[in-house]
């Protein structure tokens, strides 16, 4: 025999250093990586949007759920003062009310300043606002409270924020469904692109696939070669997309109190961790779509 030794240095390498039996499996190559990167970017942003909206809506809902606002309006400022004091008395006697505090005239005037300007005349009957905090573990009897308030302060109205809260919930739910739809559509478009790329890869390599078949390769073996290629392609593209989306989100959330554009605390460590789902799903979808496409194509051969 001879001293000749094969060291395999010239062998083309696929993922994990194995020879790539189908070198052109991703006929689209770099362009397909770019497509996956863009899709991963959009999916990550959509997912981030859904998470941020869900988090913000939950925060707002929590803030409003344990609070009431009582407003006293009357043409006579003295009557407003009298009814406000009566309402405060009723509120402080009501079980389940943790705290009831009337805004002073200056604070209420500040709220009206954008519309009426400063230096309101003393004769102007400014409504009185009472902010009420409810005890978290004791449910106040709202019907009884309304009855007692209307008796003691007939010009007082109670706002438990339910209307606003329900609208907010509907809006945030709609936004989350929209984001979910965007994610689904992005992944559907990506899957369709991968199907075309996998078919193109098989077509470009039909001679190699023929040889593999004729020397006894199972469909699973050939599909594994293709899916390995697409796995690494998907992994690369998905994390490029994630990096781009993360940069955008970081820029939006930094630079000020809670960020210029995003609510304070919108991007928690849990949110960042959850965002990893998008590239992982993109990579998995790329791999499985390529595998399914190849197996389907091979099933039509002898």
């Amino acid at each position, binding site marked *: 025999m001879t001293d*000749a030794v094969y060291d395999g240095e010239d062998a083309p390498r696929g993922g994990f250093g194995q020879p790539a039996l189908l070198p052109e499996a991703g006929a689209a190559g770099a362009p397909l990586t770019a497509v996956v990167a863009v899709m991963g970017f959009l999916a990550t942003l959509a997912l981030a949007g859904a998470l941020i909206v869900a988090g913000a809506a939950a925060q707002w809902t929590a803030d409003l759920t344990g609070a009431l606002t009582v407003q006293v309006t009357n043409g006579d400022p003295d009557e407003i003062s009298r009814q406000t004091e009566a309402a405060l008395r009723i509120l402080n006697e009501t079980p389940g009310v943790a705290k009831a505090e009337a805004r002073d005239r200056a604070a209420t005037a500040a709220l009206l300043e954008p519309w009426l300007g400063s230096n309101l005349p003393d004769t102007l009957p400014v409504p009185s606002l009472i902010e009420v905090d409810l005890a978290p573990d004791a449910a106040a009897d709202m019907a009884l409270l309304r009855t007692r308030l209307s008796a003691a302060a007939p010009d007082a109205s109670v706002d438990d924020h339910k209307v606003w809260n329900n609208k907010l919930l509907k809006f945030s739910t709609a936004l989350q469904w929209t984001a979910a739809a965007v994610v689904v559509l992005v992944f559907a478009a990506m899957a369709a692109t991968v199907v075309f790329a996998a078919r193109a890869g098989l077509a470009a390599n039909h001679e190699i696939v023929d040889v593999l078949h004729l020397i006894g390769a199972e469909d699973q073996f050939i599909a594994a070669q293709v899916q390995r290629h697409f796995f690494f392609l998907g992994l690369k593209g998905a994390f490029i997309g994630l990096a781009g989306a993360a940069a955008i989100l970081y820029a939006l959330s930094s630079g000020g109190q809670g960020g210029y554009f995003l609510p304070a605390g919108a991007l928690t460590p849990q949110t960042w961790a959850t965002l990893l789902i998008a590239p992982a799903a993109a990579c998995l979808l790329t791999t499985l779509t390529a595998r399914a496409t190849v197996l389907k194509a091979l099933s039509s051969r002898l």
Partner: protein
Amino acid sequence: MIVQFNQVGLRYDDQPETLSDVSMTVREGDFRFLTGPSGAGKTSLLRLIYLAQRPTRGLITLFGRDVTAAPRGELPPLRRRVGVVFQDFRLLDHLTAFENVALPLKIAGVNPKRYREDVMELLTWVGLGDRMEAKPPTLSGGEKQRVAIARAVVAKPDLIIADEPTGNVDPEMGARIMRLFLELNKLGAAVLIATHDHGLVQRFKKPLFRLQSGRLSAHVPKPQERAPFYPRAAEGGAA
């Protein structure tokens, strides 16, 4: 029984039959030549044996299994028992000679550590010990042919099919390759070699199948015969 054809016919689209009523048998330990003029249907017959296509009619059994209507999922294990030297080599251009030869073992799931030495030894035996890392586009026709032969025999198949295996090598290497086939045949592999080379057929005095216009006849040489073909049919069931 390795291969059995029974009244096999093959037709491409609406063309006349490429193979008609072909009946033949290749048994364990057989060494056969397949001869015939160009266009006689040799390659089509070989394609039926290595399961590249199914016949239009008739029955084919391979290793005792009816492959005429076998589900495609049952075919890969049968294909792995057949080593094929294609006339056009069909090497994978992006792989090295070593990786091309190792391919059947890789497909069979053998650990690379177990076959590395065997593949190197086989490549050295066919004179390519210093070309293991070369890729097919840089190999000569003869070198490609030797890589193709090494790939066909590396997994020690039960049946070796070779389409013009000595067509691109010099006489010395041709004789060496034939000795390899004979050695593998002695070790139990059945061998079927399609060739135009009458000198080769005469030199090795092995039974031959002759294809003429899609019809097959079988001949067994007499020990003293040195004629280009053999006149007496002796294969039962041959057309």
